[in-house]
């Protein structure tokens, strides 16, 4: 049995000194132990009472021991070893800090999330990362280095059945022998993929990125963003599926960056829900009592150019008719015209309703009240990754980027 921690302070101090040791090893290019990895998890927000942490994770083989109101130590009941530390950041968001190897944790946590109707990853779309990147350009010392990775895969180019593998999504996995074996066993299908990564000074990056985006649209599909540490050396790598690797010498800074990003993510999710949920709602009209009004607005996702017809058709057939691919949506495509398809569908991940109008130029979404805003984050992330990196998103009369800018100001204004 691993060490049992007694307090939050003990955990934070342990992870702080652990991070310092790893950073020294990284600098010497000889890493003896795993880096701290954090997995950001969103819980399904229903009108029902909040579920206990044990209920949320009962699908796992974990034993979750309480340290304080928001911090838990997680044990693997089969091996008797520590999986990591689970912290509830805000009402809907949890983070698992772990020191396990990627092949010991990532597949496991992805499976728990996939099999649960209450849990989802946090999904950082290219659009979300690009807004954060602007903040970094404006605020962090331009001499610091930043790492970016962009990925786009034309998943729907080929009509053949092809399930996306369950391998870990992060870069580190590319070095992992076990997963390489799995890759070799997979059916190999050729299709257009592009992946670019670079590390450069912030000043250079801010100058070159707009130029790169003009040339190659994949440079809008940011899938990894390394924030420079604000207190020391190194940085924190945020992956599109809600994983954060600590490559800095401070765990406290790592946690702080996670808190900031989660707070912003939570604000934008709640904003989308408040604005987009379709329902009749009672509003107060001064002393004159109250009245019902129709609330809600469609969400529009416009492609940068009309999708190739083959890709569009494969997307509909694979996603809805065969239930395959990364989107995990369910529904009967109703072909209302040659190009227009309506789907009154379900997000199978959280069993939530979503109404979708598809054309090769745009997707219009209607969210019935109760459908989690995270469904939209996941959809945007996957559209940028697999359909079109350079999309424009509006929630009613507001652009997604403008909403983020305003909410960022709000976070800054309140000093959080």
């Amino acid at each position: 049995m691993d060490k049992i921690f007694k307090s939050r302070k003990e955990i934070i101090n342990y992870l702080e000194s652990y991070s310092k040791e790893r950073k020294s090893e990284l600098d010497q290019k000889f890493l003896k132990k795993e880096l701290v990895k954090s997995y950001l998890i969103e819980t399904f927000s229903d009108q029902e009472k909040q579920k206990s942490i044990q209920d949320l994770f009962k699908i796992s083989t974990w034993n979750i021991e309480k340290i304080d109101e928001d911090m838990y130590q997680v044990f693997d009941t089969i091996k008797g070893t520590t999986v990591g530390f689970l912290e509830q950041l805000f009402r809907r968001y949890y983070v698992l800090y772990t020191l396990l190897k990627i092949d010991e944790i990532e597949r496991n946590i992805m499976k728990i999330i996939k099999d649960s109707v209450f849990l989802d990853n946090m999904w950082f779309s290219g659009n979300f990362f690009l807004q954060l990147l602007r903040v970094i350009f404006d605020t962090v010392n331009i001499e610091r280095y930043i790492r970016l990775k962009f990925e786009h895969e034309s998943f729907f180019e080929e009509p053949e059945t092809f399930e996306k593998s369950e391998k870990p999504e992060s870069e580190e996995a590319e070095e992992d022998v076990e997963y390489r074996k799995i890759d070799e066993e997979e059916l190999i299908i050729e299709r257009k993929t592009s992946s670019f990564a670079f590390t450069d000074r912030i000043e250079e990056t801010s100058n070159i990125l707009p130029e790169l985006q003009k040339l190659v649209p994949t440079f809008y599909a940011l899938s990894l963003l390394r924030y420079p540490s604000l207190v020391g050396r190194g940085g924190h790598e945020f992956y599109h599926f809600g994983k954060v690797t600590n490559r800095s010498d401070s765990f406290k800074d790592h946690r702080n960056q996670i808190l900031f990003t989660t707070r912003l993510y939570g604000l934008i999710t709640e904003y989308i829900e408040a604005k987009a949920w379709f329902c009749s709602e009672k509003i107060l009209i001064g002393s004159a009592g109250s009245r019902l009004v129709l609330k809600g607005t469609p969400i529009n996702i416009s492609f940068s150019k009309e999708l190739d017809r083959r890709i569009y058709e494969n997307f509909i057939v694979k996603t809805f008719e065969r239930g395959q691919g990364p989107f995990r949506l369910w529904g009967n495509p109703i072909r209302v015209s040659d190009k227009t398809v309506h789907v009154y569908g379900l997000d199978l991940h959280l069993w939530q309703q979503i109404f979708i109008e598809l054309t090769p130029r745009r997707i219009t979404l209607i969210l019935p009240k109760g459908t989690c805003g995270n469904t939209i984050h996941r959809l945007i992330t996957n559209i940028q990754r697999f359909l079109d990196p350079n999309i424009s998103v509006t929630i009613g009369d507001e652009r997604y980027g403008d909403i983020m800018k305003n909410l960022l100001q709000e976070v800054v204004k309140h000093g959080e």
Partner: protein
Amino acid sequence: MGNEDFTGAHLFQLNLLIFLTLPATDGKFSPIFWESGYQIESISPTLTLPLPLIQKAKENNIKIKPAVSPEIVFSNNSKKLFIIVECKKTSFSIASSNSEQARTYLLLSGNLIRDSLGKSVRDNWGSVLLYLVGENHREGMIGTLKQLSAELASMGAFPIPHTVLEIKRETDGIYLRISDEENKLNITKVKDNGSNKIKVLHLEKGDDPRPLYLIPIDPSVGMDSYGKTVMEERTRLSVASNLGRKVGGEFDFIIDEMLASVISVWDLWEDSNSKRKIRGWVKTYITNILNILKSNYFLNYQYASGAFHIESLDEENANKIRRYLESADFRKGKLELPVGEDGQLKLFELEGDL
């Protein structure tokens, strides 16, 4: 589904009007009513005339209805203006039975609507009658409304202003033509552009003008095939969503809550007869699905007062139910229920009432 012209179809007109009140800047709609400060006040409300007016019409041998239910009432809170909206595929003459309804609308002053809708008497409201008609019916409709207004004025009443929007499909979109030189509706785009023809829905070649229907059915005016398909899809979807999320635990499945997600304007819809029919269909539909789940996966339930109480279930059977709900057969509505020749569950052939 073909490339038919739906511009005269009742549900298309109704849903189009709703979308024109929703904020949007980058979709296929140009929401002229939202831009001009209007929102939906009520759908199918019952509006009544005061007794003296009814009596006066009777004395003058003018046929009216004591109460009417227009399709929608829009309101503009800052201008304190209601728009009574009625959708018609074609115009009608004063000899038509529709004229009784139109005369009544013309007698509904803003304050009468205010009182019928239970709003505060503190503010004075104005009102405008708006008919949305199919292509080439604008002139006929204006003519009829003018005659009816003159008739009402002759009996000493004060008919409210009226206007007509003609809906027309062109290759690049859906246009509304406003027969309103004074712009009684205060449509911002008309003021800004000085044009009485406004593109409200942008279409590319091969696009279909029908939006995602927020009202898929309206039993009071019949149902089109697309609306029926939508209603069936959404009902099945809502059942899957509720059960998929909650099965295993004990919970209540409230029909009106489910219908509020199936029909977004459910709570604003005041046509109680239509709503009762829909509740009946949906109750029977859900009962049939729950009976399948009961016999195959031991899911127990009771029904009382508009809600199904679902009992808790072991994890193994709960997961089996989720797999069944994810199955292609359930998705396509191929259930062991009354089905049509195409294998689709015929929701509207089920009997039931609440």
